[in-house]
């Protein structure tokens, strides 16, 4: 198999829900809107499993644009290292009343 370029571990899988457009994360079972429940992959095998799940879910018209995002674990919660991905787990930074930050009191 060709070498796939992956971000450094640990990683989570992020996608958009096809119907809603909302950002979702692969969880232990299915998907979650709450990054705290995201499934964290710490090695190549687990990362590949996430990717395969994402690809299958894209084919099944459940999600679009699934990709791996590298995170740090802070107080047990995965936090994306890049600020762009961090914003996607929260919502617009000037509207704390909107998005996941509001829904989950993040």
């Amino acid at each position, binding site marked *: 198999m060709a070498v796939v370029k992956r971000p450094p571990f640990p990683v989570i899988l992020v996608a958009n829900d096809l*119907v809603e457009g909302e950002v979702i994360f692969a969880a232990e079972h299915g998907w979650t809107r709450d990054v705290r429940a995201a499934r964290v992959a710490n090695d190549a095998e687990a990362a590949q499993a996430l990717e395969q799940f994402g690809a299958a879910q894209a084919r099944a018209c459940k999600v679009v644009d699934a990709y791996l995002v590298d995170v740090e674990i802070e107080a047990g919660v995965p936090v994306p290292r890049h*600020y762009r991905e961090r914003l996607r787990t929260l919502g*617009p*930074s*000037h509207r704390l009343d909107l998005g996941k930050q509001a829904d989950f009191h993040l």
Partner: protein
Amino acid sequence: MYAYDELDRQIVRERVAQFASQVERRLDGSLTEEEFRPLRLKNGVYLQLHAYMLRVAIPYGGLSSRQLRQLALIAEKYDRGYGHFTTRTNIQFNWPKLREIPAILGLLADVDMHAIQTSGNCIRNTTTDCFAGAAFDEIEDPRPTAEWIRQWSTLHPEFDWLGRKFKIAVTATQQDRAVLRGHDVGVRIVRNAAGETGYRLYVGGGLGRTPMEGKLVRDFLPRAELLGYLEAILRVYNLEGRRDNKFKARIKILVHEIGLEAFRAQVEAEYSKVVAAAPAPDLREFERITASFDAPDFADLPEVSRKLEQAQAADPDLAQFVARNLFRHKKKGYVALTISLKSIGGAPGDATAEQMRAVADLAEQFSFDQVRVSYKQNLVLPHVRRDDVPEIFAVLKAQGLATPNVDLITDIICCPGLDYCALATARSIPLAQTLSRHFADPDKQKEIGELSIKISGCINACAHHHIANIGILGLEKSGGESYQITIGGDPGDQYALGELLGPGLPASAVPEAIDRVIGVYLDARRQGETFIETYRRLGVTPFKAAFKEIADAVA
């Protein structure tokens, strides 16, 4: 205003039905994302950072009260209670669900609106002067020309899949209030020596990755020839423009690479073929359109309004508003009134559903049912009696819409940036909010005078940062957000691209850096000089020196 006829309505309805079926086919898996993406983009649907986004066309920025109320309804029912007005004078909804977008498009169609050609590689919304039909200095109302172009460019089979997007602006005044030279084609309505009205055309302007100034391609084109000549320009672009590299696919690159003379020669050659193939150009459609833009039934009013003068004397806030937010009208006793969507600390260009309804009501009561969206992301009531300004002001104030800052430093143009936009490299809105608060003091704003700040969250320059007096571009630098500052840009008749002051700064250092730049201006300005005038006289050097102190301190 132009009223849709049966044909317009049919086109829009058919498009809603077509897109509804495309969405169904996407959801049931008959269409892959790769197949669906260009189709949704043809209908203004993007997938952004947090959700889908729907961009709705507001042709040349004109809205009726009924249309604005419908936008408010959509914001409330299908979104999160607000919308964002853009520099293309469109409106964006940030949270629609894909399944519901056909229903939203249906609601738009009910009021003769749509999202066709608000994205994708086609001819986009034609923009114009936000004071069109009202301005004291216009040769004629530019909206009939803009509408003529809209009809011609809508679903034009030859130009539906261009190499890249294509933007046209029209203006009819000496003072350029529509950024003509920043467009793929700029159309200026002019009169020739014989007194005939026609068009002066600029081509190859644009911002983005490679900012360019539009070049004069035709000094005078008789009115009847406009669409034929545009066809020739688009055809040359469509055939000769690059498709191998997305970043080199705009017409500005073609004009730049082959040179204006060669480009013009090709266009003229193509145009003679257009002329040979088509029957004599015909003004009937233009005249039909023009008739629908008949001036409203203005009353004969005295030049000054006692009522307004007295109210101003009693209310300093109103006096300040009058000093900043009114624009001279062609008709005595009337003004065009700008409603700033730049409240101190607010997100530039955002309006809530409630605010939209309030503006719609005001337009209905006081402005012949008309509202305009300006590329500066404000709203305009184009035809207001001076007598009515105090009453309008009171309503605006209650809605948080009476900020008296038109063209002042807090009237910031700002794109959605990384708070919404999938292409962004940095956030822009929070910085706009910080700067707005930083310069909130009305006396300070007055002292600084006219000065434009424009903030884009990436190199695509949706907020026109290159042509701002102070332009800010958000980039990524070493894993963090970094802001490059340019100064000296001008969107108007003395069109100029800003000069970079130095290395990018973290957001926290930007207010102080701008303070320094403004300090240079305030120290050096001569009586009556605006920021840009002082800059033109001094050049960039002293500003760079002042900036360097801040840049060095944070480096």
